[in-house]
Structures are given as structure tokens and as C-alpha cells.
């Protein structure tokens, strides 16, 4: 489950009662690559989500997040082919300069327009303005240019894509259709450059990519979630999400996936793991939200006991307008034991719904 709440809000707001015209994510979906790396206009919401931990030659550490959203708003045929709006394209881009404890963040929203944003299988490209992910041979290239920061990265996966959930769907709530189709590259070997305030750093590291599409996923009583991606030193990865309900309890549709060294995924249901805040929090001065930035994760079935700490505190993507929400998404340090042997790694943590109650009222 990767979802920016912000995107969802927009989605909800712009719905014109056309939800029925979109397909639901249903079990038994047959994945086909490379087709399923690209757009699924029959589903309302879709995103391509890149996060990663990188190190410069001098040891300076960076985290990055580059996300492309597509949000369907209209399925009627367009009168104006170039400028008519069927989908909104949103994108978020953040870099965590962990060495200097500085967080850079920007976002944009566009319509497809005449080539301003979009997803093209022919070109092997997902883009929003001059931010883009492009498939080149069997790898991907990321490019994002912000006002005072940017990146160019080459990503290459040694593992096949993982399909999360069961029977091709990742269930998010009670009821049929409250689910998504969810694909990840969990270990992308990454190299390239990061630019910060006019200086360029050559970087290497590991990235994670999610691609998810759905029409209706969350249920009405869910207020937010906590999501984790962990890349461990033993070439295994773990993805977990925890859905929080209005009453404070954890939803039973929380789940995860464990990926072994060969890239095989094992579905973890809510019963298979625990994911609890350690009590350490950080309070955002911008949104006033208080985020738990240290966690304990236990996955008994594979003997994992992990502690998770934010690599730096302020990695909040603060909403810029009155009603848009803020969320925390940032690089983390992971340490702990596997079968009582020490193990370490890093990853990304996403926490939403901490700043204010969310509006889930549908169209």
C-alpha cells in the first residue's frame, strides 16, 4: 500500500460521480510485464513511487523520494484534445540531506496537456514536467529538477517485480474492491548524481519502487497509516503497512510482504507481524502534527526483531494549503536481530493522518 493522502483527497474532491465508470481492483488479475509497469486508465488512482538511501563518495548520506500520481477525474470524451482533463498528474519530490540535516521538498500538479505530463508505454516513460522515470533497456532512469535541488539516477534491479497481497490484490479494507494492484521492485541498485544548492554529489545506494493502481481502496473508518520498506543487509526486504482506524485500533487489513534473496515474496497478514511506536516523537512546527519516529517491528515467522529510527527528524512533506494534509516520509536506519543474530539495514517510512482527521466522505 503506497498512497499519498494528498492524492486521495484530491481524488475525492474532484470525483464527479464517475467512480462507477472505473474498474475495481479484483482478485485474479493477471499481471503482464512490461505492460503493467505503465498506465491503467481504467483505474482511478495510480502511482509510481521511488524512494531510496544513497551515499556520496565522501560518505555523506542522502534519502530521496520521487512520486508520480495519476488521478482519474473524468472519463467523458474530451472536447479539447490537448487541454481537456481526464486525469490529474501530481508529483512529489523530496531529498533528505542527512549529513546536513536538511530536508528539501517540492510538489507539482499538472494535466496531461500537450505532453506536459503522462505515462507512455511506447516511450517507456512516466513523467510530470521535467520530472520523469524512463525505462532504458532493463533499468530505469530517474530525473527530477527542483529549484535548488535535483537528481539523476540509474536504477537496476537484480530481482523480479514482486506482486503484493493475495491472488493479485492487496486488500485495504472490508468489502470487495477496497483493494489495489500493487507491484514493487524492492532492491534497485542505484547510482547517479544528486544536486543540492548548486553542488553535485555522485551517489550510490539502494532504491525501492512501488507501482500501485486502484479505484477505491481505503474504507471509511480508516484515518491513516504507517508504511515501511526495509532493505536488510542479507539481501532480503520487508514491506509492512499498518492501517489505523478512527477508534485508534489497528485495522485487520494491515499487511506486508517479505522478499527473500531470490526475490520471492511471502504475504504477511496482520496476524503475522507487529509494528509498534517506541514512544519517541517529533513535532512538526509547520503542521503541528506529532509523528512517532522510532518503531519496533517483529515478524516472528522469520525470526525478525527490528528497531527503526528516522535517519533525521524533519522529513515531513508539509501541505501547502489550508486543507491539504501533511505527511512524513523519510529515510530510516534499521537495526536488530534475525534469529538472534545482529542484522542491519535501511529503508523508508511513511506516516499519514497525524496532522488532522481525514475527510473520507465519498462523492
Amino acid at each position, binding site marked *: 500500500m503506497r498512497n499519498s493522502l494528498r492524492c486521495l483527497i484530491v481524488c475525492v474532491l474532484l470525483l464527479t460521480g464517475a467512480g462507477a465508470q472505473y474498474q475495481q481492483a479484483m482478485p485474479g488479475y493477471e499481471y503482464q510485464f512490461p505492460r503493467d509497469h505503465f498506465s491503467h486508465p481504467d483505474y482511478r488512482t495510480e502511482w509510481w513511487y521511488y524512494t531510496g538511501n544513497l551515499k556520496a563518495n565522501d560518505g555523506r548520506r542522502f534519502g530521496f523520494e520521487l512520486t508520480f500520481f495519476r488521478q482519474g477525474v473524468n472519463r467523458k470524451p474530451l472536447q479539447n484534445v490537448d*487541454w481537456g*482533463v481526464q486525469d*490529474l498528474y501530481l508529483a512529489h519530490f523530496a531529498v533528505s540531506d542527512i549529513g546536513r540535516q536538511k530536508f528539501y521538498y517540492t510538489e507539482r500538479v499538472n494535466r496531461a496537456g500537450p505532453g*506536459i505530463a503522462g505515462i507512455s508505454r511506447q516511450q517507456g516513460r512516466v*513523467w510530470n514536467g521535467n520530472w520523469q522515470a524512463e525505462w532504458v533497456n532493463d533499468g530505469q532512469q530517474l530525473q527530477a529538477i527542483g529549484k535548488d535541488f535535483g537528481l539523476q539516477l540509474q536504477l537496476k534491479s537484480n530481482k523480479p517485480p514482486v506482486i503484493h497481497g493475495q491472488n493479485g490484490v492487496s486488500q485495504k479494507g472490508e468489502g470487495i474492491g477496497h483493494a489495489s494492484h500493487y507491484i514493487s521492485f524492492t532492491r534497485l541498485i542505484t547510482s547517479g548524481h544528486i544536486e543540492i544548492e548548486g553542488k553535485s554529489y555522485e551517489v550510490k545506494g539502494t532504491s525501492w519502487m512501488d507501482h500501485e493502481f486502484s479505484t477505491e481502496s481505503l474504507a471509511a473508518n480508516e484515518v491513516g497509516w504507517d508504511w515501511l520498506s526495509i532493505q536488510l543487509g542479507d539481501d532480503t526486504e520487508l514491506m509492512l503497512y499498518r492501517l489505523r482506524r478512527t477508534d485508534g485500533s489497528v485495522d485487520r487489513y494491515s499487511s506486508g510482504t517479505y522478499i527473500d534473496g531470490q526475490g520471492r515474496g511471502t504475504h504477511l497478514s496482520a496476524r503475522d507481524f507487529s509494528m509498534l511506536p517506541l514512544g519517541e516523537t517529533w513535532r512538526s512546527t509547520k503542521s503541528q502534527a506529532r509523528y512517532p519516529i522510532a518503531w519496533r517491528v517483529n515478524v516472528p515467522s522469520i525470526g525478525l526483531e527490528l528497531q527503526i529510527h528516522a535517519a533525521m527528524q524533519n522529513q515531513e512533506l508539509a501541505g501547502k494549503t489550508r*486543507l491539504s494534509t501533511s505527511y512524513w516520509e523519510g529515510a530510516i536506519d534499521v537495526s536488530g536481530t534475525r534469529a538472534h543474530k545482529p542484522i542491519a539495514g535501511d529503508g523508508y517510512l511513511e506516516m499519514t493522518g497525524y496532522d488532522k482527521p481525514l475527510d473520507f466522505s465519498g462523492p
Partner: protein
Amino acid sequence: MTRLLLFFRLMVRPLFREPIRTATTVLAVALGVAVVIAIELAGDAAAGSFRSSVETLAGDSEIEVTATGGVPDDLVGKLATLPYPIRVRPRIEGFAVVTQTGESVPVIGLDLIAEAGDRMSRDWKLPDFADGSERGADLSSGVWVGRRLASKAGDQIKLQINDDTREYKVRGVLPSSAGDNAVLMDIAEAQQELSRTGRVDRILIRVPDQPSLEIWQQRLRQVLPDGVQVRPQGSGTEENRRMMAAFRWNLRILSYVALVVGAFLIYNTISVSVVRRRPEIGILRALGASRREVLAAFLCESILFGVVGALLALPLGRAMAVGAVNLLGTTVNSLYVSSQPGSINLNWRIIGLALMVGIGVAVLSAISPAREAAQVSPVEAMARGRREYILRVEKWRDLWIAVGLGIAGVAAAKIPAIDGKPLFGYLSAILFIGASALAMPALVEALLAAGTRVLTALLGVEALLASRSLKGSLRRTAVLVGALSTAVAMMTSVGIMVGSFRQTVVVWMNSQLPADIYLRPVGNPAIDRHPTISPDLADQIEKLPGVEAVDRFRSYDINYQNMPATLASAETETARYYHSSGFLSGKPDREVVAALRGGDNAIVSEPFANKHHVKAGDTLTLSLGERKVSFHVLDVFYDYASERGFVILDRDTMLKYLPDPAPTNLAVYLKPRANLAAVRREIERVSANRAVLIFSNRDIRAEAVRIFDQTFAITYALEAIAIIVAVMGVAGALLALVIDRRRELGLLRFLGAATAQIRKMILVEAGVLGLLANLAGLLLGFVLSLVLIYVINKQSFGWTIQFHWPVAVLLAALTIVYVATVLAGLYPARIATRLIPIEVVHEE
């Protein structure tokens, strides 16, 4: 301190002793300066409005990308995906007519989705896509409007765009920072409503501070096609400003005429006061005042006139500017660029200008009499009597200088323009005015000598006395005639110029408007707005019985060599209906127009040719859409419709590069013997649901003449003010004359003159002044009109105007001036009759 006291006693006090003359002089300065600043203020307001809502809504962009006929949509994508940290904002820019008021307002299409979250859109409360208040938002058929157009969201507003009228829902009211009359809509809808298929009008780009703007422009140019222009944002505004500069310059010069007339009057006032105060000056000199002090005292007096006049001119000028802005707005709209007049701002620059001009003109016109005052020798203190009123007139020397100036004027008229400005043309005009002023004493004397007998025979002894008195104070008379004749000359010359122009246009229209019926979209015409007519309407009309052919005329705003111009296309097949000879080469139209069809050929209008130094046989490279295309210039045609200049292509050639088939005007030719009224009714029927205006040939000519007259309204207003100043001067001067000659007038009563005879004498003097001024003014006006038509107009606008005497207009104008001058004598005459003879004769 003693100096100040001296100044007060010598200079200021006498002014209060002659309140009427002082008042008229100050008022003349005030009027002259007021006209100058009114034109300046009005010009500022008119020019300021180019930065209308369109630019206000442009936000903080640095570079603009434009192309003739619009920038292709895909270039927006191309720019948006460039690997530079730049912000790309496509825009549709057009205008709509508010059905209710008929006002033309800017329509701006923005990418409201991409603008969401931007500071500008937040400030203006545009929909934010993260804002819950826009729940269920649908971007189509909603507009955001300036507060003058709607009071609240939810209102409906009826707008006519091109030839289509529709109701729009007001989604929000823009704050005043966005201009009060703009209409904003989403780019998708704007593109459709304004029929900009596949193109946007402008792409604004915000670039980082580093590297330089030039480098950014270069980088963008590298990735864009040739025909697309990359310029600093607001270049269009700059170009309009530059184009307007010549016009404003001409207007400014015209406004200084009133000032020149005022200068004559100051000269007169100070001359008279020098003469009258010769004994006092002599006494002062005898008491030890130096020449320089006397000179300074008189200059101070003139500065006083200047300052008081300038201060009075400020409120007066501001009031005049209100009127001028309206007149100017019409001119600017029909000749240059559509604009909304901005506000009139009386700022420090204007105040400074007023003071500078007021003091400047006062001091300049006082220098010569003040120097004369300084020449007064102490001995003259005692020498009273007959010498008192005799002014030194060196009419022969002045006449020779006048001849010299006239020759210089002729020479200056032959020098070409500098930087598009007819500097030497103006110099020539000034030299002629100077020559006329210097020749005036000799001329007046000669005319009076020749005319006295005739006048006496016609009007009796009063005429003899009047003309003798005028001749007796020759210098004063010459100055008055000079002032009034300069105003008359200006009126005459501009009258002849405008009249010739008008006649030329009328003749030209007869050959250029051969069609029987014309159509254009509803709305005030402006040279840079090209609303279109649906192409299917043209097709429908063409099929009507009785219609022989339809010429689809299409025009675009273009930019050539950083100056705006109009690019248009016509259907050359209809050339067979043309029967005019409108080309400079003298070739028959049919031949030239037929050749136009043959490929990338163009014809250009005379103002265009002059402005850009293009002639037949040259190659003209134009940016069309994204391409740069070279055209062969076949010929230059006479055109009086626009100062900006036209380039005309064949319609097929135009469509090859700019494929939008919608015409901006239609010319309908009827079959022989078809019934005009019936066909017109048919056209009205098929265009019933379209907002188009239908003109018969006669209508459109009348309309053209009406626009022409509106265009020149401002010049008439300026002339009127110059005349008023001059007539006021005549009144003031006659009054001075009466007061100076009161002893003589009293004596006449002793000798048996009735009061009616005294009145008649003064009125005859006014009449003779008016007559002389009209004669001299007509003469000078004729010379100046030649300079205006063949030098100044030609150099700054490039029109070939056929000389024509607008006899009726001139006669009417001269009669008005004459009558006004005589009427100006009424008050002085009244004063003259009220003098008590025994008092004035014996006072000494």
C-alpha cells in the same frame, strides 16, 4: 533684503496695479502649460493601460514565447519537460465583448490546474485543487471576472467571443490586483471559446536568476523552432510603447503650440511693462541700480508669471487630461493598439514638467524685453513725453532674418528623419514660425498701409484711427498678430493636413472597398484585435442566391523587426472584382494580385514599407506559427487604415502556414442585378445566431469616416485651446492698448467723438488684428501644412497624402476665430467708453 524690497516695489506692485493684464498673462501661461501637461498625463494614462489586465495577470515571469497565429500546443510540453528549473505557463489571450455594456474586456485562459497552489492563484482565490471548497469542481463553463463585471460568484455573465454569444457562470470575483475587468477561464475552455485550435497565444516562463536572462533566452531558442519568438516578458507592451512614442511625440509637439502662443503674450506683457516703466527704470538706474539688476528684476517678474501659471496649470491640466484621455483612447484604439485608459496620475514628474515649462517659456519670452529694459540709460528718467510709447522696431533687419530663417526652413524640410522621428521636419516648422514672427512687423505695416484707405472708405474715421493706432504701436501689434496667427496657422495647417488626409482616405476607400456587403464580429474595432467569424457562415453566405463571391479576409497581429504590424490574407480569386489602382508601382491591381497567388509572395502597405525600409522586389522574412518563411515583396500598396503597417498574403498561402480557416472579415460581392436589400436580408437570416455586424458598402464608408474623425478629435481639441489662448491674448492686449491710449481716447471725446464711435474704433482694431492674423495665419498655415503633409507625416507615419483644401472647414474655422477676436474686443471697448475724458486728458 533690500533687493527683495526693490524687486517687490519695482515688479510685483505694478502687477497688482494692472490686474487684468497680469491675470490674462498668467492665465495664458497656465492654459499653455495645462495643455502640455494634459497631453503628458493623458499619454501616460493611455500608455500605462497597455500594461492592462493581460500583463497584470502575467505574474512574475521573465520570458515570453510567442508566434504569429499562436504557439503550437506541443511546444508547451516540450518546454515543460526541459531539464531546467523553469516554470512554464501557457496562456490564451483574447477579448470578449460584454453583451450588456458593449465593453471589450480581456479574456485570459490559464492552466488553472498547474497554477493551483501558486502564490498568484492563491491571492486571486482561483480554485486550488487541494482546496475542499472546490468540491465537485468542474473546470468547464466557469469564469473568474474582475469586480466591475460581476459582484459575486454564482452570477451569470453574457459574453460575446468572436461571433458567438454565450452565458457564463461566474465562479469567482478577482481581487482588484488582477484588474477590474478581466475574464479568466481555464485554458481548455479559453482555447475552444476563442478558436485557438492547437495553439496558445503566449507561453510565459519564469527562469532562475542565474545565469543571465540572455542565456536563458538562448537556451530556449535552441530547442524551439525558428518561427517562434523568445523575448523578455512584456516585449509586446514595450513595442506598443515604442510604436506609440512617435505618436505621443507628435501630440506633444502639437500641445506646445498653445505654449508658443502663450509665449507671445508674455513677451507682449513684459515688453509693454518695460516701455511703460522706462522712467522708473531710469530713476532706478540713476539711483545706482546696475544693468544686471534691472535685467534680473524683469526676469524675476517673468519667473513669477511662470510659477503662478504653472501652479494654476496643474489642476487645469488634470481636468483637461480627463477629456484628452477619452479622445486619445479613441485614437490609440483605432490606430495602434487596443487599450483601456489607465488612471491619471499627477506625479512629481508632471509637476516638475509644469514648472519647468512654465518658467522656461516665461523666461525665454521675457529675455528680449528684459534686455531692452537693461539698456535704459539713467538719463531717460527725465525724458518723458512722446518717446514713451514708441518702441524700437527694426523691421528691415528682422525681415532679413526672417528670409534667412525661411530659407533654413526649406532646407530643414529636405533632411530625412532621425530614428523615425521627423526632427528636422519640426525644426523646419519652427523656423517657418520664427520667420513669420520676425517678418510680422514689416508685413503688418505693409498691410496696414495698403489697407487703411480701403478700411476708412468702408468703415469711416474709426477705421482710420484704429489702423493708425495699430500701426503706431507696431511692435505690439506685430506680436499680437504673431501670436494669433501662429494659432491660426496651426489650426489651418492641421486642418489642411487632416482635411487632405480625410479626402485621400475617402478617395482611397472608393477604390479599396469594392464589395457590396461587409461583415465583421460585433465589438469596438481596434487595430490589434482580430475576432473571427465562423468559417461555415462564410460558406453559407457564398451559397446564397444573388451572391457572386465572398472574400474571406483574415488578419493576425505580428511583430516585425520589434515593431507590431498586421498580417492579413485575402482571397485573390476575388481580385477580378477589384478595379482600383492602389499600388505605388502604378501597376494594375489585377496583375499584382494575380501574381500574389503564385506562392510565397506578399504585398505590403506604404507605412510598413516606410517604417521597415522595404520595397518591391525585397525579401521579407516572417515568423508564421513555428516557422520562418521568406516572402517575395511584389509591390507596395497605398493604405490609410493603419499606421502599424500591413503585410498581405494570398489566403491559400496563409492557410499553408497558419491553418485556421476562420476569417476576421467577409466581403460579399453581389451578382449583377442582384437586389442589395434582399441579399442583405438573406445574410442577416443566416447569421441570425452570430454576433456579426453587417455593413453595406455605404455604411462601411460612413463608419470609416466616423472612425477617422474620432481619431483626429484630439488634434482639434488642441487647436481649439491654442486659439482660446490667442484670443484671450488679444482681449488682454487690446485692454492694455486701451489703457495706454486713454488720453487719446479722451481727447477724441473732446473732439466730438461719440461713445459708439470709440467702441467701434476698438472693435475695428480687434477686427483688423483678427483679419491680419487670419491672413498671416493662413499663409503660414499653408506653408506648415506642406511641412506636415510632405515631411512630418511622411517621415513619422509614412502615408502619401494628396493635398486638398478643406475649404468649408477652413472658412468656418477662420470665421470662428475672426468672430472670437472681434468679440474679444468687446470688453476693452466697454472699458474705453467708460473712461472719463476730462480726467484722462488732463492727467499728467
